[in-house]
């Protein structure tokens, strides 16, 4: 561990907060329909889009209408993306398939499409060996934008339900979507893409380069329109890499600076949304309370991961390596990590992308130490509420807030109230289901994959290790795969794949079909079920009368509530996942034994 490493983590938290705060006020203004700094420029295009889409932005929608628009729009996105990916060679006339890649088979495509529609970006394919530039741009990049938009509008609708004082309206889905894309995602992405190119990220449509190295070898170097996708991949907490090794690849994340910058891009909207929530409720302290709770958990996770990775792994020690800092070298567990990021930059990045639903990685999670690897597990087990994905994080934690209010109400023996609204059986049932449905999907799929022979074939350890995959690592691979997909995260213990590249010929082998299909259902179910529950909660709350807070009302904006909220999140996560976590990462963290 080094002072610079700790400084990175601390300064990151400070810079993030400083940037998220003004963005939060901006977003609150956008979703309250107030004029913002970009309105003079974007007002025209906004109205033009409404006309083009034949929508009346003033038509108010109740939760059912809002949900219906959201679902039908997502389905349309699914169908078009599936079509584009399955007809990859049909688009060769655009000249955007220089390597002449064919489409992947239907099962891999099913998984990929479900993955990008749900903001998961789990990848059973490898970008540079299977996808044409056209598929990456017109297919995958588009869903990077839209899935982020769908997440954000759900959170906005929930906030409107919580603060709504008249009737059942949650706003208009189409208006929210257009505003999200134009006013929030577009400025950030364009800015980020240009900054990234200025630092060395690729942005071209050329053929792959063939270089003749100084020792007389040839090296083919993949090219592509990377920066435009990288920007929205981070800003929209998507996380699907243009290249197979994602943000570890020097063309996606070339320098120490881009690493820091990309981490900020990931967390900026989730953090800003929490502040926006505070402003929209009319009591900024509501936002600060949630921000405090998640920042506390975030910093805890980063510290644990950093300490664990700096310590090194049992395999390194068994091989006789000294994992301390020598002559200013990084030391620690550098297996699967890039020199330019070092231990702190890798540990922090992977915490940033697993607390959110981003799932980009700049180092190999599979190679993290037991305890270091338990951190992403724990982040996912908290159901992506520690900042969480764009929108998803906020609506998920608001469900937890509801639960905490309810539990707090029971403890003090009063009818629970939240922002002046009585919490009754219907809301608690819906929130409870919304919270528990994701863990349920994750555990069900893990059990199915672990118990079936088709599922076990996807575990890399089965093929490679002497213990035949009956190891904690093998279990971790499977468990992480379905936990990550259920939480729409998309990072992986990347050994979990039957897709041994670059031979595209072996699809269908190694249990890949099973994992494709199960994963696809896992992602889709665990995305839309909680969205529906969140919207239903919004609908239930929207019509309630507001009673002024009295002396005995339990406050939801003070430190006591922050502690209660953290307690509820940790308790639910631990009770749901602790047995499974023990079998995988924790047992590896507690032993120096090699398997």
């Amino acid at each position, binding site marked *: 561990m080094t002072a610079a490493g700790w400084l990175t983590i601390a300064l990151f938290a400070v810079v993030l907060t400083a940037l998220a705060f003004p963005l939060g006020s901006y977003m609150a203004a956008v979703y309250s329909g107030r004029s913002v700094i970009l309105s003079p420029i974007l007002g025209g295009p906004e109205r033009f889009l409404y006309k083009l889409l034949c929508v009346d932005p003033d038509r108010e929608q109740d939760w059912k209408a809002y949900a219906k628009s959201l679902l039908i*729009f997502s389905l349309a996105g699914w169908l078009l993306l599936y079509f584009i990916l399955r007809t990859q060679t049909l688009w060769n006339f655009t000249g955007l398939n220089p390597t002449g890649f064919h489409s992947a088979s239907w099962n891999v495509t099913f998984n990929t499409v479900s993955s990008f529609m749900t903001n998961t970006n789990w990848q059973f394919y490898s970008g540079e060996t299977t996808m044409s530039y056209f598929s990456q741009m017109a297919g995958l990049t588009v869903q990077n934008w839209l899935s982020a938009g769908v997440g954000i509008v759900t959170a906005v609708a929930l906030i409107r339900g919580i603060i709504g004082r008249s009737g059942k309206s949650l706003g208009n889905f189409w208006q929210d979507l257009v505003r999200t894309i134009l006013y929030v995602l577009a400025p950030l992405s364009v800015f980020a*893409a240009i900054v990234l190119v200025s630092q060395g990220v690729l942005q071209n449509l050329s053929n792959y380069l063939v270089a003749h190295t100084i020792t007389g*070898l040839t090296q083919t170097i993949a090219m592509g329109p990377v920066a435009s996708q990288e920007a929205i991949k981070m800003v929209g907490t998507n996380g699907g890499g243009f290249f197979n090794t994602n943000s570890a690849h*020097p063309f996606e994340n070339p320098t120490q600076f881009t690493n820091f910058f990309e981490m900020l891009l990931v967390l900026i909207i989730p953090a800003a949304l929490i502040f926006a929530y505070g402003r929209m409720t009319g009591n900024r302290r509501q936002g600060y309370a949630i921000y405090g709770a998640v920042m506390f958990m975030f910093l805890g996770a980063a510290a644990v991961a950093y300490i664990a990775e700096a310590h090194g792994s049992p395999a*390194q020690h068994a091989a006789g390596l000294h994992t301390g800092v*020598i002559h200013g070298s990084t030391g620690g567990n550098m*297996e699967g990590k890039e020199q*330019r990021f070092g231990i702190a930059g890798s540990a922090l990045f992977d915490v940033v992308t697993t607390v959110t639903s981003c799932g980009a990685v700049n180092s190999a999670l599979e190679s993290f130490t037991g305890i270091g690897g338990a951190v992403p597990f724990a982040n996912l087990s908290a159901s992506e509420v520690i900042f969480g994905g764009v929108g998803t994080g906020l609506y998920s934690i608001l469900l937890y807030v509801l639960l905490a209010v309810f539990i707090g109400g029971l403890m003090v023996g009063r009818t629970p109230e939240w922002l002046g609204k009585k919490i009754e059986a219907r809301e608690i049932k819906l929130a409870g289901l919304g919270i528990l449905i994701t863990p349920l999907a994750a555990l069900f799929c893990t059990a199915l994959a672990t118990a079936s022979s088709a599922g076990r074939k996807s575990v890399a350890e089965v093929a490679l290790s002497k213990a035949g995959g009956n190891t904690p690592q093998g279990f971790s691979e499977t468990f992480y795969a379905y936990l990550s997909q259920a939480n729409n995260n998309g990072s992986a213990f990347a050994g979990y794949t039957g897709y041994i590249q670059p031979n595209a010929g072996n699809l269908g082998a190694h249990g890949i079909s099973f994992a494709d299909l199960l994963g696809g259902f896992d992602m889709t179910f665990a995305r839309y079920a909680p969205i529906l529950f969140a919207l239903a909660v919004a609908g239930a709350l929207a019509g309630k009368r507001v009673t002024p807070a009295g002396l005995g009302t339990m406050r939801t904006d003070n430190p006591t509530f922050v502690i209660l909220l953290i307690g509820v999140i940790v308790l639910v996560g631990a009770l749901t996942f602790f047995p499974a976590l023990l079998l995988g990462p924790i047992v590896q963290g507690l032993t120096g034994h090699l398997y």
Partner: protein
Amino acid sequence: MQRDIRTSAIAIVVFTILLGIVYPLAITGISQVAFPGNANGQQIHFNGKLIGSKLIGQNFGTPVLEKNGKVKEEKGAVVTEADPRYFQSRPSATEGGSHNAAASTFSNHGPNSVRTKEANEENIKAYLELNVNPTTKKEYDPGLTVSRIPVDAVNFSASDSTPKSHRANAWIQAYRVASVRRLSLARVDAMIAKYTSSRALGFSGEEGVNVLELNLALDRISAGGA
């Protein structure tokens, strides 16, 4: 319902054109004008030939020849052995030969895996052997042992195609390179310093030596005799 279907159908087409075609092409246009070098991968040309990219690591090995003089291949990839004249990149586990920049991959070696230990041991053995003078049978860097090897020298990187390794790794190899190339150690160390990028803003990330640029600079010295 019908209204939603119609709007969704129009919306997905409109957004695909705007966000999937106009946006990436616009960024490509801006980048090609404003940052052509970066946008095209920081290519390095030498004598009119493309040698590689500043951002992508290479295999600094020479092809192993079979007895009949043919280049030896395994699994469709040329078998190479490390060239002692060059600083070596971090180990790479890509298929189709190491540092395959058209198919990046993680090594996916688990922390408690026997495979990981064996891979580490193999890399350590290769590293130590390369740094032994074949005629005197002594280490170029006196007293080099396992426990002095910086971890990045023998652990697989994440992208498996990174050009960066740590200075401590380069300092060890400097003894070998200086000796083989008949340069003074001080001069090689100075060149290492020249091609080392520091932490961003003084704290973020780690220092890293760009091994490709360093090797190219060495070749220029040897060729020019300067």
